[in-house]
């Protein structure tokens, strides 16, 4: 069929994919030049996460922040993770950071950088500690619940755990008030199976958006006490703690991109039905 014989919809269907890519990439930039701000409603799972932390954490409680996302997922996970870190510090929690991704060191540095104003008043070893990397294995997570010292003999900088003030009486899941797991994969499953169920330690998820679907049954059945879903969850948490930051700004780009995707789906289906009728 020659180019002239094609209908409008058929021509549209044959547009080079790169045209779409350029439209999308340029479209995503617009809100960063001219911000597009609309009110953000708080979802029940994010509110439960926020309120759960506020209700459960007393000053001095030890909390685990599990970094199970790589540097590549910062745009999605980091805003919510940083917001939760700020909230925990506000509540007076002592935080243990550790992670199941080999690039956890850089993510930890980034958390410190994003929450710089909060950490400057805290003392390493007394208010927070960084234990480093553990393998992405259910056995490792189960063993951390039984004895943190069997996996981490020292902190990330070589100091034995017994010489770190906030770790003196902390070795088991029962010594931990709650676990917040930032995920791109299924590490939170391990915490549910090896911490939440046998020891009763409350667990919440700070995951990429797809995990909002996968972990919904856990949240609905009360296994997870809260859940932040992707960058949207990050924006909601920023609103709840009263500090709009990266995720709030990025919702403008989410508006543009999501509208583009829906327009693409609608156009494609109109074209499909039009060509089918023909």
């Amino acid at each position, binding site marked *: 069929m020659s180019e002239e014989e094609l209908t409008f919809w058929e021509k549209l269907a044959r547009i080079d994919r790169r045209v779409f890519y350029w439209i999308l990439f340029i479209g995503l930039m617009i809100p960063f030049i001219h911000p597009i701000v609309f009110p953000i409603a708080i979802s029940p799972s994010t509110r439960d996460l926020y309120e759960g932390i506020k209700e459960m954490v007393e000053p001095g409680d030890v909390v685990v922040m599990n970094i199970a996302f790589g540097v590549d997922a910062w745009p999605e996970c980091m805003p919510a993770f940083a917001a939760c870190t700020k909230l925990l510090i506000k509540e007076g929690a002592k935080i243990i950071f550790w992670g199941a991704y080999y690039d956890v060191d850089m993510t930890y540095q980034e958390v410190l950088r994003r929450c710089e104003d909060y950490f400057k008043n805290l003392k390493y070893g007394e208010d927070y500690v960084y234990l480093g990397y553990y*393998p992405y294995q259910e056995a490792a997570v189960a063993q951390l619940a039984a004895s943190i010292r069997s996996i981490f003999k020292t902190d990330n900088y070589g100091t034995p755990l017994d010489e770190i003030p906030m770790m003196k009486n902390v070795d088991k899941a029962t010594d931990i008030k709650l676990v917040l797991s930032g995920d791109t994969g299924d590490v939170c499953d391990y915490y549910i199976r090896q911490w939440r169920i046998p020891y009763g330690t409350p667990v919440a998820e700070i995951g990429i958006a797809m995990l909002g679907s996968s972990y919904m049954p856990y949240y609905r059945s009360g296994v997870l006490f809260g859940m932040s879903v992707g960058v949207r969850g990050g924006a909601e948490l920023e609103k709840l703690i009263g500090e709009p930051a990266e995720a709030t700004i990025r919702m403008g780009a989410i508006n543009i991109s999501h509208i583009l995707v829906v327009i693409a789906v609608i156009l494609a289906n109109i074209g499909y039905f039009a060509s089918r009728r023909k």
Partner: protein
Amino acid sequence: MPYPTAPADVFGLWVAWLLMLMIYSYPLYKENPVFRFAEHTYIGVMLAIMLVRTSITTTINMVAPPLMKGRLDYIIPIVLGFMMYFLLSARYRWISRYPIAVLVGAGFGLGMRGVLIPNILNQVISTITPPATGAGAVDWWNYIYIAIGTICAVMYFVLTWEHRGAMGYATRLGRWIIMIGLGAYFGNTVLFRMAMLSGRAQFFLQVLKIAPM
């Protein structure tokens, strides 16, 4: 974060920006040597970081203190760990089955005991627990939808009986329920992918000082 001022960081920022453009030259233009250069840079750096952090430093951190205290039993997992590398030898690859046996055994044992309560028991309880007294019609509708929907969706995966007759109706409903679930999952996937890409678009502008850092 303020715009970096240290020369190494400013240089790093621009290197990062250029490498990003090199990678995007593939989808936005076509496969080219510049893209392959950036791709190989990533693999080289990533492999090194992975080895430093996992097999080398974390292993030393885990085994050196107990070994120095005379815990010679820690030699066993070290030997087993290195036995895994026999996977690279066609002749002796069977040796690697021993560490695999330990890993798989631990994985299955922990997984099997772990799924019983949160994945089965809690889900069944949550499905059949009716709304509290005084719940409205919407709550009851959601309860019935989730209860019947879950049963029908599970029936879709029951392959012992042919999906015909009453079973056929139930599994068809189950398939629709699954499609709704996958639709929501797709919606969330779009959020994730676009959040990632918007991060790059933002970085593109930040380096050029068009958007604030």
